[in-house]
């Protein structure tokens, strides 16, 4: 459980909120300038608010009144930035292993081989970050974050700079982290598609205030939509029999003549259309 209580002033912008997050994936959702990034910066310790109290489980990370301020590197959180921020002077392998030396006595959370397998970055290990594409960089950055065995992952619009196919790949990665590794995630985005795919809970922010909090409706029919079929089933009604082998069927607002020797007028039938018999015509 993560409790976040913040009050802060940045120029004309003021931040004032008090939220409690359960485990799972919480999306901080809202327009640019809503204060989403400031919130996770404060949680990560990259921003010290004027007033604040941040508690993860029973560990107080920040309490401005009690003068408790655990520095960023001792918070044991991983931060996945919009820009992957891979260290340019280190290879992909050295980037991935960067957080491991700071684990101390903590057990590793994710096995190295399994992680690079899941992310599909095994073939990139010897390369330098400069030689990677945007999607590859972000996958390495996610791997680097996971391998630092964080107690919490903070992700700040990690997909914003990627094209659609890359986004989809990485959404799957985040789904896996959420469902398999079971690390709590605070995920900042202004994309409602990402909210729909990922959110267990949504905290809606605007102008530094909480507008609403609700359970995320992960698209229930997501699985059904994803099934790829080669036969289309349409329901129609037989209007009349033309002869022994043909009927006229009312289908999708049109009358169509179909081969059939059994259906009776007035009867509802399922008409199967093979994908191979269909063609795409541009409007």
């Amino acid at each position, binding site marked *: 459980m993560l409790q976040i209580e913040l009050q802060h002033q940045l120029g004309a912008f003021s931040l004032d909120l008090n939220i409690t997050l359960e485990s799972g994936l919480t999306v901080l959702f809202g327009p640019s300038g809503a204060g989403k990034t400031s919130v996770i910066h404060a949680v*990560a*310790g*990259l921003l010290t608010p004027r007033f604040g109290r941040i508690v993860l489980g029973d560990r107080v990370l920040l309490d401005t009144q009690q003068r408790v301020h655990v*520095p*960023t*590197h*001792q*918070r*044991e*959180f*991983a*931060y996945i*930035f919009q*820009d992957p*921020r891979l*260290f*340019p*002077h280190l290879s992909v392998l050295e980037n991935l292993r*960067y*957080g491991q030396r*700071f*684990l101390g006595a903590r057990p590793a959370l994710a096995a190295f081989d399994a992680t690079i397998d899941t992310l599909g970055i095994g073939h990139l290990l010897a*390369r*330098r970050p*400069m*030689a990677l594409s945007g999607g590859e960089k972000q996958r390495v950055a996610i791997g*680097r*974050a996971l391998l*630092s065995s964080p107690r919490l992952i*903070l992700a700040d619009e990690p997909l914003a700079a990627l094209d659609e196919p890359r986004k989809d790949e990485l959404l799957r990665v985040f789904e896996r982290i959420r469902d398999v590794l079971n690390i709590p995630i605070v995920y900042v985005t202004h994309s409602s598609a990402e909210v729909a795919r990922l959110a267990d809970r949504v905290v809606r922010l605007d102008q530094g205030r909480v507008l609403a909090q609700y359970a995320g409706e992960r698209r229930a029919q997501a699985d059904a939509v994803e099934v790829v079929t080669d036969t289309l089933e349409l329901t129609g009604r037989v209007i009349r029999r033309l002869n022994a082998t043909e009927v006229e069927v009312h289908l999708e607002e049109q009358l169509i003549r179909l081969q059939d020797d059994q259906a009776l007028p007035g009867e509802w039938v399922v008409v199967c259309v093979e994908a191979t018999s269909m063609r795409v015509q541009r409007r």
Partner: protein
Amino acid sequence: MEFFALGPNEWAAIVLSVQVAIAATLASLPLALFVAYALARWSFPGKGLLNGLVHLPLVLPPVVTGYLLLITLGTQSAIGGFLSEIGIVFAFRWTGAALAAAVMAFPLMVRAIRLQIESIDPQYEQAAATLGASPVWVFLTVLFPLMLPGVVVGSILAFAKAMGEFGATITFVSNIPGQTQTIPSAIYAFLQVPGKEAAATTLVVISVVISMLALLASEWIARKVGRKEGGL
């Protein structure tokens, strides 16, 4: 080869110049790293003043810098007197020449390192901290490797400046053969004596060669460092 024949004083000047330049460069490096980091990354009251002080030797006439060193660190002054009591003497010693060279070279070194630090995105340091690296580790594993090209360039510039430093050195520690006489002051001394032009020319050639070697070395190191960083 009589042209290139070097007397003991010439040899002493060459060895002393290299010794002074290396000492000046190495001794000022830690402080230059700290000052460059402070100027690039921190905001604090008096930052403008510190920046001005660091750059002062660049804009002051070198003789003035030398004179200021003499009146603050000479054996007659309070600070110089105290230092000489605990065994540190700068005036009219080779260490004084190194100090004068270091002061004159300091702004060049700080400037090169500062520009390099400013070109490094602080986001890398944030990312390292979120992965568990303490500030010391962030410096050792991220910041220092990324600022290395600037450190190399700054050190070579400082070395070259220290090799060529004349005005502040001769004012502060005079021109004593075998003790404080560097290549530039030896050349100056030869030019005051009729018939010593050949000896002066020899030192000029040697001075050019040492500077060129330093420059080539810096190019080579910068390329090596650059390749490591940007290589595929």
